[in-house]
């Protein structure tokens, strides 16, 4: 495991470079809106993976951050009239604050209780979003203008919008990468592996968990705010527990605790949903559930995890 990780680690700069170039030319080969959707969900999943994959905390309420940031960004841009970058920033900050609230409460318990608490808190956010008038209830927040970035660049052009989303994704990914590879990230891993030992070494475990939670929530919010601008809509389904489940599935399918896994998982799930939505209708939920069951039973390393294991077996190292 370690040697294959080292091998991949040594090739990562090259891999990132290739992916970056692919990201730059992608909108000329594929439908930009589809790509933007993938990037938003990929950032969402990466943010989630920071928590589950590297800190061992399963949050079942990440939809709350995605959705809340979407609403805040939408309201700021549409009703207050700020520029898009301010809207995204506002959404990110709002999600970070909400993450701080959730985190303070949820890290009082561990394991399964942590998952249930985050799910329950997110459901509370869902009910509030359903009842508060500002969110538009079941209709959602419609007609959010994309506006002009910095008051200059017209985002109604899909290609311009795509590069903004791509830049935001790269920024978020960089933040996560740096977090994981910092001393802070090492301590998170230590907590994941053996919490009592981390405590006995003198680390304030709760503080580290809380900071990880806030970073993850804020980045999930950044994805949600960006998504609102892309689709010019903030909807109730983004706060629903289905969205929380989806991000778990993306991360699990791509490879838990791998740096690229969530991106692969998000791309796979979003493509599947887009493909299946027309042909099978309500069976999409069943298929998602079946992928979940299969992943848990016999594909726990995920796509990237399996690839790493394959490279290790074939002895490239």
């Amino acid at each position, binding site marked *: 495991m370690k040697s294959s990780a080292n091998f991949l680690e040594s090739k990562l700069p090259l891999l990132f470079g290739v992916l970056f170039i692919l990201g730059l030319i992608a909108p000329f080969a594929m439908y930009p809106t589809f790509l933007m959707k993938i990037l938003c969900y990929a950032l969402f999943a990466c943010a989630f993976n920071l928590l589950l994959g590297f800190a061992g905390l399963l949050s079942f309420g990440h939809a709350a951050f995605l959705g809340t940031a979407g609403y805040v960004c939408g309201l700021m841009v549409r009703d207050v009239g700020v520029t898009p970058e301010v809207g995204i920033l506002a959404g990110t900050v709002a999600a970070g604050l909400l993450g701080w609230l959730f985190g303070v*409460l949820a890290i009082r318990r561990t394991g399964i209780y942590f998952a249930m*608490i985050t799910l329950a808190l997110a*459901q509370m956010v869902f009910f509030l979003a359903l*009842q508060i008038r500002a969110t538009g209830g079941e209709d959602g927040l419609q007609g959010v203008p994309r506006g002009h970035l910095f008051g200059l660049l017209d985002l109604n052009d899909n290609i311009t919008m795509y590069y903004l989303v791509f830049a935001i994704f790269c920024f978020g990914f960089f933040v996560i990468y740096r977090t994981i590879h910092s001393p802070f990230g090492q301590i998170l891993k230590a907590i994941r592996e053996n919490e009592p030992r981390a405590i006995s070494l003198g680390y304030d475990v709760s503080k580290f968990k809380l900071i990880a939670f806030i970073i993850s929530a804020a980045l999930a919010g950044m994805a949600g705010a960006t998504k609102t601008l892309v689709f010019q809509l903030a909807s109730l389904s983004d706060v629903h527990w289905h969205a929380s489940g989806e991000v778990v599935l993306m991360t699990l399918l791509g490879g838990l605790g791998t740096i690229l896994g969530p991106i692969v998982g998000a791309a796979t799930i979003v493509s599947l949903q887009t493909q299946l939505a027309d042909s099978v209708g*309500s069976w*999409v939920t069943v298929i998602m*559930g079946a992928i979940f069951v299969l992943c*848990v*039973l016999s594909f726990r390393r995920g796509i990237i995890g399996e690839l790493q294991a394959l490279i290790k077996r074939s002895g490239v190292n």
Partner: protein
Amino acid sequence: MEIFGISTALLGSQLLVGLINGSFYAILSLGLAIIFGLLNIINFAHGAQYMMGAFVAWIALTRFGISYWAALIVAPLIVGAVGVLIERLMLRRLYKLDHLYGLLLTFGLALIFEGVFRDQFGISGESYEVPELLSGGVDLGFMFLPIYRGWVIIASLTVCFGTWYMIERTKLGAYLRAGTENSAMVQALGINVPLLITFTYGYGVALAAFAGVLAAPIFQVNPLMGSNLIIVVFAVVVIGGMGSIMGSILTGLGLGLIEGLTRVVYPEASSVVVFVIMVIVLLVRPAGLFGKS
């Protein structure tokens, strides 16, 4: 009659609704607690299994003419049997792994069940007639009590306390409690722990299905009826802590009543009051009201 400017009829009927919801919370959180005690997993499919109980009763009545009373026995048996299969074929492979995988697996199963029923029956919901024996109601003077609602409370409390008795006072229950404490030791003493685990999961699932049959005549039989309920039940479980059987029952009932009261005083808050209480409990007593650690 009025108390604090609220008519007793309104207060009484909302408290009754609260008590009914509370008894569903009690049965469901009881099932979750039993399963968690021995298997160490949270059964996310609990809500879906509750929904399946209601649907089996509805299908039994409309397609095969099987009465409500027979469905009260048959539906939990069928859904419980599905639970036994799930445990034998899937959950069993996960016991050596992180407990979170059990949660993820049952979440996937919940999606599958929900999706299949939604495809078959749509989301508009089907109504289930109140059985003749329990239709009508009695006037209690201060409020009108539909007999079926009274029956639901009695039936669910009987099942809850029966389960409590079985676990706390019988030999089988003693095995179960011992298995919860230290399953390796119980196994070493010659008790078939894997069988005990299968039985426990099946029983917990059957409890959920039983609640589903009870709920069928009150609520619409709907593929989504379980998923929103189960999240509230999770909050109930966090509030009560899963360490005590009686604790689960009392917490469930109490929260149902509080929810009913909230609906009288400030209806807008009724859907979130349980979550708010969860937040308060986490701040004051993080282990839960009846929790151990």
